């Protein structure tokens, strides 16, 4: 049901990595998580698991991600 209520931009983004082999996708996800980079696919998957449509487009998600990154501390 929730898929029907998805915004068009989020649908496009959800299908973007369809052609990438799963191993490469996993590897990229690991690197993204280690360096603290935004991972919109993970967000979409989370929304799917939680059973609600994504509230943010990829652009909005990236904006919010960088904003919260700016509040983090880097050690000396």
């Amino acid at each position, binding site marked *: 049901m929730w898929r029907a209520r998805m915004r068009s931009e989020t649908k496009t983004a959800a299908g973007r990595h369809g052609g990438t082999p799963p191993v490469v996708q996993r590897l990229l996800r690991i690197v993204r998580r280690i360096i*603290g980079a935004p991972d919109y696919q993970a967000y979409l*998957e989370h929304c799917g698991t939680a059973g609600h449509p994504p509230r943010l487009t990829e*652009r909005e998600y990236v904006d919010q991600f960088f904003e*919260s990154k700016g509040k983090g501390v880097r050690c000396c």
Partner: protein
Amino acid sequence: MKRLASVFLWGGVSVLGAAAFGVLALSRGETVNAAWLLTAAVCTYAVGYRFYGRFLATRVFGLDDRRATPAERCNNGRDFVPTNKWVLYGHHFAAIAGAGPLVGPVLAAQFGFLPGTLWLVIGVVLGGAVQDFTILFCSLRRNGKSLGQMAKEEVNPAAGATAMLAVLFIMIILLAVLALIVVNALKASPWGLFTIACTIPIALLMGWWMKSWRPGRVGEASAVGAILLIAALVGGGVVAGHPTLGAAFTHTGPAITWMMIGYGFVASVLPVWMLLAPRDYLSTFLKITTIFVLAVAILVILPPLRMPALTPFASGGEGPVFAGKLFPFAFITIACGAISGFHALVSSGTTPKMIARESDARFIGYGGMLMESFVGVMAMIAACTLDPGVYFAMNTTPAALAQASQALSQAGFVVSPDAMHALAARMGETTLVARSGGAPSLAVGMAQIFAGATSVLGGKTLDALWYHFAIMFEALFILTTIDAGTRVGRFMLQEIVGHVWPRFAETSWYPSVIASSAVIVAGWGYFLYQGVVDPLGGINSLWPLFGISNQLLAAVALCVGTTILIKMGHARFAWVAAGPLAWLVTVTMTAGWQKVFSADPRLGFLAHAAALAGSTTPDAGRLIFYDRLNTFMALLFMAVVTVLIVTSLREWWLVLSRRKVAVVHEAPYVESAYAVGD
């Protein structure tokens, strides 16, 4: 059978570690191979993690995988995300590792390789890793709350406010010291300055790439950034050799100071995606790669340590790099790598929001800090592979060198001007004398190790390129810390002023952004400037101040940890946090007292001010003011932590004597949906 094998295995590791320590401790006069130092460190980490880390996890904290973590309960696919422990280990390590574990051991090498190494290895197992693990555990049980919030709730509101003020002041000193390292590395170095200057347009390009052109494509942007960075590194050599361009990128310390101040302000005001985030990605990639390559290079060539185990400066206290005896100054010079209060901010920041299972906290919190200590050991090796004469010539200001020349020649730590000239030419610099701050000598050590490794592998020895690569590597992530630290300081100031003027707390209101950024930058910029114009080198006064403040922040964290353990009903185990706390308070208060009241003008701020009182030098008045300001800062740090310790002691007494009901502010227990052991 399995138990017997375990006994043999861990018995063997312990014996090997003890033997390695024996070789290090008993060597007098002969050259020791770095392999012994690495063996001693790795065996100690392994035993510490296996036994002490496990004891903390099971007996002291009672980690429970049936309990859902904040990442599981508050999962939002962005900040709160259950993450694989190996991935989170990398993320946590990238956040805690900075310039501190590299520079501190290099400076402490003036006492010889043994004291610093012992503190790095023993301090981390019993103190630093315990602090990180304890705060991570406490935050994990409190929905990822920050250190300040936990101090406010678990100790008392005054403690929370005190902790927040302490963090703000410490941040200002920290940023000044880190900026000073960059200034000392880049002054009169056109190659280094050109390379670092290029990182600004590269970061802006990356920011535009991953924000506007291809949103979120950090990998692509970082790959392009890395290629451009290498081009800038190679181009730096050409620029330095060009008569006009070389002169354009050759500047004095004060000039680079003003550039740093301007840069810090702009970086704090600009949106995160434009400069901070891309620079952060670039430096994270570079940091992880370089540390890995350095570890491999050291293992390949296993260089001999040319610095003795102990130098005469350990007991005399008249060391030319910084003044003061081994106790307490070795323990505040090496902060990050052994124990660092700043880690408590990371352990109560993003990491607790990403832990999938409680038991992962041991690997990430305790294990992550062990890896940071290992980085410190590698920095110690890099510094100690240098000829001691070269090491002291590089890290000592001309004024301090003149004072210490007799002690240096008695110890045999001499180097001819021709040899220093030849070394500078090999590294592509005009001079390497009096390049204090630790970064240039670490860069020379790293360059020699890298060059040695590439020659073993059949490559060319490109000393100058490796040297400037090492400088770029250090400066890049120091600048990242300056970006992030100025911004976090700005947020804190906005929050504090926001209590009396709510509009000021709006982080997107530009007058507030500009005013608060200006105040924070002026704060660290002022200390930076005084460090640059200080004839004794700045590092001599500012690095101990940074060490004291960082260790006092660790004392704040351990106060909070001890309070929570007592309130949890685990008072019999409170010593795990109270022990390192007692040691840190002893060390930092002794160091703070000596920095203020010592009669030696090289050591005591007030004695230095008194010595300058009758001087006719034009800068005397300003230097006296700096000494008094440093005195005020040191006393302020000591007073703030004393307040926190007294309020914590009162809280412990009230709870233990049952005059007060212990209330822990843990999040309610929710059963995890993840199968235990899955």
